[in-house]
Each structure stands twice: as structure tokens, then as C-alpha cells.
């Protein structure tokens, strides 16, 4: 597993996402209310750029007539066929038995530790003063 520095925290504020290619894999990193999530940007269903879809909540019904709407902004909905995946785990809510999207751990590291490595950040300039989003891949 390699650790990739993908963005300065200041460049990825809450509510934003960033698309990139890491090790020839299309990845998107999301900042959702200050938490960071990495997902493969390819829908396991038919291959659409999954992470270009809207972030929605999870509508569920435990019993007929009752609807709970939870996990607001933590479910990614594919821009083609509307398949829903949990950004925390990559779990599919449409066909969890057959499909899962690859989720990558993402977190913040201080510039001081990023500079030391072992990290990969060939296209980002890293400085000690800033914090960075790091994705494990």
C-alpha cells in the first residue's frame, strides 16, 4: 500500500470533491463535513464516472409507512443509472451481494510528517506549514 498526498486541506474545503488519477486508477476524494473519503471513480455496474453524481441521503423503510432519511450527504448516486453507494464503505444499496465500489482510506496529515515520507506527491508541492489529504492506495 502506498500513501498518496492528493491535496492541501485548504484546497479541499467541506462540500467539495477532487478528481484525480492515482496509479492509473481514477479516484475522487470528498470532504464531507470535514471528513475525507476516497472512492474509485468508476461505477461497478456499467463503468460510469460514479463520483460525478450527487451526494444524497439514505432513504430506508424499516416498516411499511415509515421512512427514515439518514446519512445525509454520505451516499453517492451514480450520474447514469442512479445506483447508490456508501462513501464510507463503498457498499451498494442496490445490489450489495454483487457490487461494491472500492473505497480508499483518506485522512489529514501535517506537512511536517508528509515531507518526511514515505509518501508519493510528485505533482504537489508539499510544505511543512500546511496540512494535507493523504489517500492509502
Amino acid at each position, binding site marked *: 500500500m*502506498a500513501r*498518496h*498526498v*492528493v491535496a492541501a486541506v485548504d484546497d479541499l474545503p467541506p462540500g467539495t470533491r*477532487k*478528481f*484525480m*488519477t*492515482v*496509479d492509473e486508477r*481514477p479516484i475522487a476524494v470528498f470532504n464531507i463535513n470535514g471528513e475525507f473519503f476516497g472512492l474509485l471513480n*468508476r461505477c461497478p455496474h*456499467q*463503468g*460510469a*464516472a460514479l463520483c*460525478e*453524481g*450527487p451526494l444524497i441521503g439514505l432513504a430506508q423503510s424499516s416498516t411499511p409507512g415509515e421512512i427514515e432519511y439518514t446519512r445525509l450527504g454520505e451516499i453517492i448516486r451514480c*450520474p*447514469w*443509472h*442512479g445506483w447508490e453507494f456508501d462513501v464510507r464503505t463503498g457498499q451498494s444499496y442496490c445490489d450489495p451481494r454483487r457490487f461494491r465500489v472500492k473505497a480508499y482510506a483518506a485522512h489529514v496529515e501535517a506537512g511536517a510528517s508528509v515531507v518526511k515520507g514515505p509518501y*508519493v*506527491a*510528485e*505533482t*504537489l508541492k508539499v510544505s511543512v506549514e500546511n496540512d494535507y489529504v493523504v489517500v492509502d492506495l
Partner: protein
Amino acid sequence: MNVQFRPAAERGAPAGAVTAIADCDIHPARRSMRDLYPYLSKRWQEHLETYGGHAYQGMMEGPPYPKAQPNASRRDAYPPEGGVQGSSLSFMQKQHLDPNNVVLGVLNPLNTGQGLRNQDLSAALATAVNDWQVAEWTSKEPRLKASIVVANEDGSAAAAEIRKRAGDPNFIQVLLLSRNVEPLGQRRYWPIYEAAQEVGLPIGVHAFGFGGNPITASGWPSYYIEEMVGHSQCQQTALASLVLEGVFARFPKLKMIMVEAGFGWAPSLSWRLDRVWQRLRSEVPHVSRPPSEYIKDHIWWTTQPMEDPERRDHLFQTIDWIGWDKLLFATDYPHWDFDEPMRVLPAGVSDADRAAFYLGNAKKLYGLT
């Protein structure tokens, strides 16, 4: 190891060997109705500005049910220069025709005069959208071919439009929709079938439309998902009407394509028609052969949205009944239920059947080499 940042718009279809395909259902869009004004007389431009178009569907504009994605289209298909999905030829080329190796694309414009109560406006808009298809699409992109859009409720005006386009290589089929004022076998539509047979073009019957009837046979449903699955039901009533009214007996050279309504129901509808026809044949003596024979002889089927059973042998059994030579691959670009070309067929299909499915059947049906 390398980390690269690429804007999303630069990505095309997935990499890998991509078979040359025919896409028998592409929807070109207008940025607005005013895109058609260069092809409409001043009289109809002012009519639209003043009165708009009144569909058979009552009391509202637009589709009867809200769609699951904006403009019922892929969210990644907005052209970079602006406008709705499907309104830019250059972006359609870049996002779809080039990366998916589409060598033949059939344009099916929707919401363009079909299903309007004002028959003169319907005919004027049909003519305008046909001129628009040639001027803005097929004359600029030889891979694309147009459908003759007609005023579907006015048989004689529709027939005149079909004959007007006879012999024009820009047009390779006539376009009808599945929801009409009456079931499609009714006599008011016969002039359309007569003209299509005469000019030698197949008729594509695309799901959707405005007929003023509830969109299911049991009334107005609650959910968009019921509209989506209801398309196959509507198409079955249209096809049964065509067979039982004797359209294929009367127009024996007519070829029709069921577009975007599924094909898994073809065997069961045919079995039921045959069984009941054996018992009630004397009611419809003009139907001189078993209904399934008309369906097998006259009907082709586009694939999208592809049937997707749990077991692939069930899919193959269904196609065995229909015939691998009767399926026409389609994506429905740019609509949201787009089928990705290289992901619709499971393993286990012969090279010959694959070639027919993706391209050969369409070339043969449309008479293209």
C-alpha cells in the same frame, strides 16, 4: 508511481478494445424550441410564442412523470459550451460516438410535435425537426442518420411528410411513439404504414409519447418507476393492436422496430396471442396466420434497456426465441438509463451473434453497407 490530476471532461469511455457498433437510439436535443425557428415559418414561430403547444396529456407541460436525472439524462453529459445533454454534436462525438466506436447512430428526436392537439402545428414542427436533423446533425456527421418525425395523429399529413423525404439518404426510418390517442393498429394510422412501406423505410416505435390516456392499463400510477416498467406494457398493447388489426397482413413489406421497451416479453405475448387466436380466430379473420408469425416476420427490437436476468441462460433462451438476427444494439445516449456498449452482453455469445447484435443486423435492416 505517479499522481496525475485530470479534469473530468477529458475522460472518454473505458479503455479497451471497442467493437464497432450501431447505436439505434440516440436522442439529439434542442437547447430550446427556438433552435427550430430557422426551420419554422414566422406564422408558427409566433403561434408558439403566443400559445405554446398543447399536448394530449392534460393540464401540464413536459413529461407526465418527473425524471430521476435532470432532463432524463446522464449528469456527465452536459456539453462544456452549455445547453442540455444531447444538444451539442461536438460533445456527442467526443463523449459517445468516438470512444464507443459508433459507426451508425440513429437519431430519435422526442418532444418535437408528436402528440400535439393542434394538428397543423404538429405537422409544421415535424417538418421543422426533420430539416433541423439534416442541417444540424446528419449533414455534419455522416455516422448519424435521421428519423422522419411525423404528426402521428394526422395520418395524411404524416404520410405526406414520409413521401417528401423518400429517397433522401439522411433518413433511415420513420419514428412513432408508443403512447398515442388510440392503439397503433387503428385505421387512423394506416396512411403512415402505407407510406412507410411505399418508400421502403422501417418504422421505429419508441416508448413514450402523449396520447391523453393513463400511462398504464390500470390507471395513473404513483411512481416514476411504474412509468419505466410500464413502457413494456404499453408497447405490448400497441404491438397486439398492430397484429390484430391486420396491419402486417395489409402491409406485408412493413418492418417495425420496438425501441426502448424491452424484448423479454416478446415470447410470452406471442404465446398468449397464438393461444387466444386459436380460439377466437373467427372474430379477426383478417389475421390469417398465427400472431407470432407476424411478430417474427415484421418486428425488430432495440436492446436498451437490456434485459438483465440473474441467469444468463434465461437471457439466451429468450433471444433464441426472438432470433439473434432481430436485435439492434442501442444505448439511448444521452439519457440516464444509457447502456454501456461493452457491458451489456454476458460471456458465451458466438462471434457471429455478437457481430450481428452490435452492427450487422442494423446495417442489414437499414440497407446500409
